[in-house]
């Protein structure tokens, strides 16, 4: 039974609040920019509150394993309404310990993204409308328990990205926006084929994820269908070699969009891989001597190392962060295919952790530095010695950078350790190569940090005109993100208890299916 519409157990309010926010923003006259900003912030914050309440009220189910326990874990927030009975699609929402942290992440990034976009003066109304529309799609994906519904929300999130980048972006924005949209859409076309195939094969009567799980798909079919869905979603997760949209897109996007793209949208891809691909077709990973498992692990590790290497040689500050996202998402993909609880825990926590880190870094580079200096070229920033002018930005960046390296005490450490522990059981050699990626991460982070903030003094930087000071919105948003980084690093159990409970159920349901 559905909880009453106006109750705290209705996490779907995250979606509706975003939609109401879109309408509210559209109804305010375009001239009242401040009102528009506050309205957008209010609705984003309200969604975040709903998501947080969800996270803290959800209790890991005790005892039991298998499908019944899995179903029970979705129960507290389950919403089921008929949608298209003709196809067997229902409006089925729910959340467990894997989706809840991601919902909170979405809320956090949306709120801080809006705070970091306070200086947006051009077509403000449309900007925040598109932003909230994008956020609503993201919430929808994380909440969907119906494959068609999930897919619909997933595609809903694609189009706003185009306009946000093409209208408000910088440097080759129209190219980057089109590239991003076409990559996303090509990926989702693969998913589309996969969904239709699996639906027809299951009898053409249901799209419900939990019901489909109980259909015994033949191994041959799993091996055929799995790559369609996994690769289709993984395009958005930035899997090498389909990652090239990510650095260009992230760099061209305005700050809030970079934050949402790297922080949340890439997680949509990984979440789709997990929730649909691996959940329904686990046998595809182990069949033929674990061919797909190994292939994806190799691609993930290439992504980790290649992303880090590419970040090392970039001249554009934002591209450094862009490539680091590709590298970090490699950990997520690697964790997903370990098929054990530790690896999966790590992957989900890494999604959360990287979401925060990437938001922080993009905010520093895009908002605090670029919007003031109007350059992202490391060679030009070098001569400015920004640490004297923007000490706050330097501090935020180095803390974010340390977290990004996976230093103990930050969330990234817990996450990446677990992924590596999980991966060691299957691919020790790949895990060792991944270590090289981590070393390079340290290297490129320090290189970027030192060049951008501690450039040569006396190279003309002292004559620089005074830059506008850091605003209160930037400070507030930075503190929120930094606090979360440290909090999850020191007390990972806040999230990890919940993730672990659901991950165990998830892995149980999978291993039961594998003969």
């Amino acid at each position, binding site marked *: 039974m559905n909880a009453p519409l106006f109750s705290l157990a209705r996490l779907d309010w995250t979606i509706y609040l975003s939609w109401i926010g879109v309408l509210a923003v559209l109804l305010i006259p375009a001239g009242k920019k401040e009102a528009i900003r506050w309205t957008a912030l209010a609705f984003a914050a309200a969604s975040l509150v709903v998501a947080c309440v969800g996270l803290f009220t959800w209790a890991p189910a005790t005892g039991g394993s298998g499908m019944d326990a899995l179903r029970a874990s979705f129960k507290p927030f389950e919403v089921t309404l008929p949608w298209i009975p003709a196809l067997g699609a229902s409006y089925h929402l729910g959340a467990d310990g894997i989706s809840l942290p991601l919902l909170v992440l979405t809320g956090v990034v949306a709120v801080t993204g809006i705070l970091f976009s306070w200086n947006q003066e051009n077509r403000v109304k449309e900007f925040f409308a598109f932003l909230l529309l994008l956020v609503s799609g993201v919430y929808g994906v994380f909440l969907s328990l119906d494959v068609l519904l999930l897919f619909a929300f997933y595609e809903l999130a694609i189009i706003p990205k185009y306009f946000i980048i093409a209208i408000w972006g910088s440097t080759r924005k129209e190219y980057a926006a089109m590239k991003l949209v076409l990559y996303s859409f090509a990926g989702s076309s693969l998913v589309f084929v996969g969904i239709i195939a699996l639906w027809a*094969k299951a009898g053409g009567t249901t799209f419900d994820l939990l019901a489909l799980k109980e259909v015994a798909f033949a191994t041959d079919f799993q091996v055929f269908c799995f790559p369609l869905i996994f690769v289709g979603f993984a395009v958005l997760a930035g899997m090498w070699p389909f990652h090239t949209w990510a650095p260009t897109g992230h760099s061209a996007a305005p700050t809030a969009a970079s934050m949402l793209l790297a922080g949340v949208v890439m997680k949509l891809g990984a979440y789709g891989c997990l929730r649909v691909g691996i959940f329904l077709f686990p046998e595809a990973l182990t069949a033929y001597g674990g061919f797909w498992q190994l292939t994806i692990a190799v691609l993930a590790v290439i992504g980790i190392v290649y992303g880090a290497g590419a970040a090392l040689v970039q001249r554009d500050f934002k591209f450094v962060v862009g490539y680091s996202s590709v590298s970090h998402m490699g950990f997520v993909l690697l964790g997903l295919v370990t098929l054990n609880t530790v690896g999966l825990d790590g992957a989900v926590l890494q999604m959360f952790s990287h979401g925060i880190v990437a938001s922080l870094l993009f905010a520093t580079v895009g908002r605090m530095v670029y919007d003031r200096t109007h350059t992202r070229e490391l060679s030009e920033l070098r001569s400015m010695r920004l640490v004297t002018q923007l000490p706050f930005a330097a501090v935020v960046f180095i803390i974010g950078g340390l977290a990004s390296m996976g230093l103990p005490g930050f969330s990234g450490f817990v996450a990446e350790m677990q992924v590596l522990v999980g991966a060691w059981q299957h691919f020790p050699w790949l895990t060792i190569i991944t270590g090289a990626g981590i070393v390079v991460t340290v290297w490129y982070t320090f290189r970027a940090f030192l060049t951008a903030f501690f450039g040569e003094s006396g190279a003309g930087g002292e004559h620089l005109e005074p830059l506008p000071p850091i605003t209160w919105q930037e400070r507030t948003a930075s503190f929120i993100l930094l606090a979360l980084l440290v909090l999850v690093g020191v007390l990972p159990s806040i999230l990890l208890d919940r993730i672990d409970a659901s991950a165990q159920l998830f892995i149980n349901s999978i291993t039961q299916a594998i003969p």
Partner: protein
Amino acid sequence: MLLVDVGLLRAKEPASRAAWIGGLTVLGLVGVLALLGQHLAVTGDLYFMDRDRVLVIDRLAIVLRIIIVALALGASLLSIRYPFTKHYGEYFALLLFATVGLNLLVATENLLMFFVALELLSVCLYALTGMHRGVLRSAEGAVKYFMVGALSSAFLLFGLSWIVGSTGATDLPALRDALAGGGNALRLTGLVFVVVGLGFKLAAVPFHTWTPDAYQGAPTPVTAFIATASKVASFVVGAKILLVGFAGMAGSAHWPWRELSSGTFGAARIEPGWVLLLAVLAAASMIWGNLAALTQKNVKRMLAYSSIAHTGYLLLGVMAANQAGLTAVLAYLVAYAVTTLGAFGVVAALTRQLGGDDLEDLDGLARRAPGMALLLLVFVLSLAGIPPLAGFIAKFNLFAVAVRADAQELGLLWLVFVGLAGSAVSLYYYVLILKHALVHAPRRSDPVRVDTLWMVPLVVLAVLVVVIGAWPQPLLELFGALVEGAGLIR
């Protein structure tokens, strides 16, 4: 209409003549709608049928006629303020004659009546296409449309003569029974000609050549009429002929997965029939329609190519060859017609003030007319198949049903692959339209004012697009029941 124009209004100003005659047309169509609505109240599925099935008015036909009359109504509303001719009497009379042809087309199950109705429709459309006075493209489009259309009629008639000659049946159920044993060479030849003829009418590649010129040249309301009402009726009747009349000659277009994977390729049977022919047409339309649209600089021409691609998608539903397939085709046609009418409506409303209907003319629309830009966004994204708009769910349903028709073998999945590769490409040019309208800076800054007479129908259409997309169940249920009630397909 002609009498009123010549007899009473000769001396009046053109604008007031347009309003009078257009208003009269709209009133008449509304009256027809009311009458048809009354027919719906009749219980039972069949309302009227004669011995040779020349006229079969069942519930399905009534609903389809309501849709077609509503689309004609939309096109007439668009025409009233669209300045392109002084021959209002002739224009609206032709539009109404074409509507009559459409009504007959969806309500017949007899091959002879089918041909007569098709000709009535086509002749009116040729003339309508050429009615943009003083515009060379309009004349060019009309001539091309006429030449190709006449040729296709010849093909169709030739094919039908072989079929009717060899079976002696002119109504579809009799034809089905006569062809139940499958085809011989004679009948297959006839079938090929019929499919080619239909391919011209439906604008499937490689018989699509008239489409871009006719769409671009015709006055925009006429383009909207051709792209919606005429397309709906042609598809319905084409599907009926193939699904009912030629049920015994379906053949198959299945990808030989099993034979390929087991290495016994020789064992893969190729079954000739119309499904195979449609598969070729569908794949070609989906690929070429989408690729050719990429380079277009004119919105109407681009939408013409996009309509060719949509024809390809629609053929997939016909190929499912079952009731669910026909239901999906009908639902898609409604979603497509509503969206397309809206898209051409926006173009028609803006053409005069923007100075043309090229992509560049749309530059900065978001600044000059935010409301119209939002409407355009809805319609174009629906054509691209983005949720939660009508185009998404209709396409999903269509492809899903086509694959489910043979769930164990997934034989038609290869066409879904082609279709989705095509629609991934299509997003590029749809976004290109939106890029000009929403992203580019305006070249002139004066705001564009749009009459309420334009706005109201467009807003209604946009709301329909969203509602159908978010909650398609009523539409699917309605057509599901109608198709089952019609009992044509076993």
